[in-house]
């Protein structure tokens, strides 16, 4: 993995977030407090603005910097979760290297584990994890099977979408929507939607 790729990914993420303002804002208005778009935009913009600083760094150092910066920029529930993801992914890459798809997949999965630990949530609780967990699992197994990046990217894009859509029928048991009970049904989780969008945007770069 190259730091350039990370920066391209950041720009692609910013584009998709900005392009989906209405969707993200509406979703968080329906079952949250309406700030998810603003939070994600603030995070994405901050990372893109770090270009000069990032390009001088190794991939894992860049990811760690991004995590730290997001931690002090996003706030809300998504801030510490996404920050934990990047910091843990960085740590794993640093420990095991980043010179193969299986290593990158393992680092991605470690990042998702960090989100699970920080938020104490799991699959089926109507959060971003309903996208991230299946994507991480599939990423690891496809990479282990030696599939090429393009195929993996296209598979993950579909899995992310399926995961995102699955949140529609769930009752939330974590996060701000946890109080809604039945009323949350019929609404897609905003964090699941933004994660799906980000995964899609990054996979298109592959």
């Amino acid at each position, binding site marked *: 993995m190259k730091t350039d790729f990370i920066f391209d990914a950041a720009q692609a993420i910013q584009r998709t977030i900005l392009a989906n303002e209405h969707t993200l804002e509406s979703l968080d208005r329906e079952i949250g407090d*309406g*700030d998810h778009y603003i939070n994600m935009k603030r995070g994405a913009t901050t990372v893109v603005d770090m270009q000069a600083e990032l390009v001088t760094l190794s991939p894992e150092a860049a990811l760690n910097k991004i995590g730290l910066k997001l931690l002090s920029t996003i*706030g809300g*529930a998504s801030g*510490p979760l996404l920050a934990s993801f990047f910091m843990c992914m960085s740590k794993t890459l640093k420990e095991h290297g980043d010179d193969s798809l299986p290593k990158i997949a393992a680092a991605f999965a470690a990042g998702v584990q960090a989100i699970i630990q920080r938020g104490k949530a799991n699959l089926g609780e109507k959060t971003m994890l309903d996208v991230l967990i299946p994507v991480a699992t599939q990423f690891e197994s496809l990479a282990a099977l030696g599939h090429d990046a393009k195929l993996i990217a296209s598979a993950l894009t579909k899995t992310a979408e399926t995961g995102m859509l699955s949140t529609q029928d769930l009752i939330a048991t*974590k996060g701000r929507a946890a*109080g809604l009970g039945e*009323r949350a049904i019929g609404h897609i989780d905003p964090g699941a939607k933004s994660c799906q969008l980000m995964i899609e945007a990054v996979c298109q770069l592959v």
Partner: protein
Amino acid sequence: MKKFINKVDDILVESLSGFATAHADLVALNLNPNFLTRKNKAHNKVAIISGGGSGHEPLHAGYIGVGMLDAACPGHVFTSPTPDQMLEAATAVHADKGILLIVKNYAGDVMNFEMAAEMLPFENATVLTSDDCAVINSTYTTGRRGVAGTVIVEKCVGSLAETGADLAACKALGDKVNTRTASIGVALTSCTVPAAGRPTFDLNETDLEMGVGIHGEPGRRREALREADAIVADCVEAILADFQTKNIATSQTEALLLVNGFGATPLMELYLLYNTAAQLFTQHGIQIVRSLVGNYTTALDMAGASITLCLLDDEIKQHWDSPVHTPALRWKM
């Protein structure tokens, strides 16, 4: 959206600056990261720090001062603050007896404060407030939100800390006050987050949201607007049921009744709600011996109100009554 603003992105810093200027005798503002501290650093006490998304003013910065908070960390509107704010605030106010974090129970706040706590180079503890009894179908605290009762927790813990009590004692009192406090809110209109530019939820002219959260989160149910007395009766019932669930006796106890406006509800209506609530609680054998009526934990420009009952004991009463001098709460000094 009709608001007094310049650029949406500047609203927080401009408002904080105005607050710090208006109360320059009491508070000092640090920008980037954003936090506010007492003007005169307190010594030899547990430092009490709270914080949360902005838009609930006077919570929390309005409660900085003698007898209450040492520092507050304001996040963006309705977005919890970030750990760096808490870290720097703690470094500024730490006074050799540890740090007590008072955090409203929202996933975002909990996680950000938790990360700060893990990084803090000082002994620390956290009190999670979760007084909102609107949410019924959930395990005890997951999804139970911290709302206006947080003010009572901050007042009592702040008072105890002022006596030189240690961190464990402060945390214990905070937890006790939280357990003995229940709140529920009602919205007549939505609030509008400035950056979003339009109402968080749609509520038509003839409906209300029972059990609304202070960020405009949906509550127990959407229902038809009714007489104030009927609305209050439902709130009182929810609060009493909550204490019953928690196995806390309410009959023959003394209590503090807080009727809190969400930002756009006139005092005239708040006192009308108070009138009915006080009567109903009294009918249930509760003695209302302390009162607070006004905008203490708001939700931007939401029209609506919450009712909070805090069951007093001698310790809580003593700490509620003790002198306090902050921008938003002041007595006996």
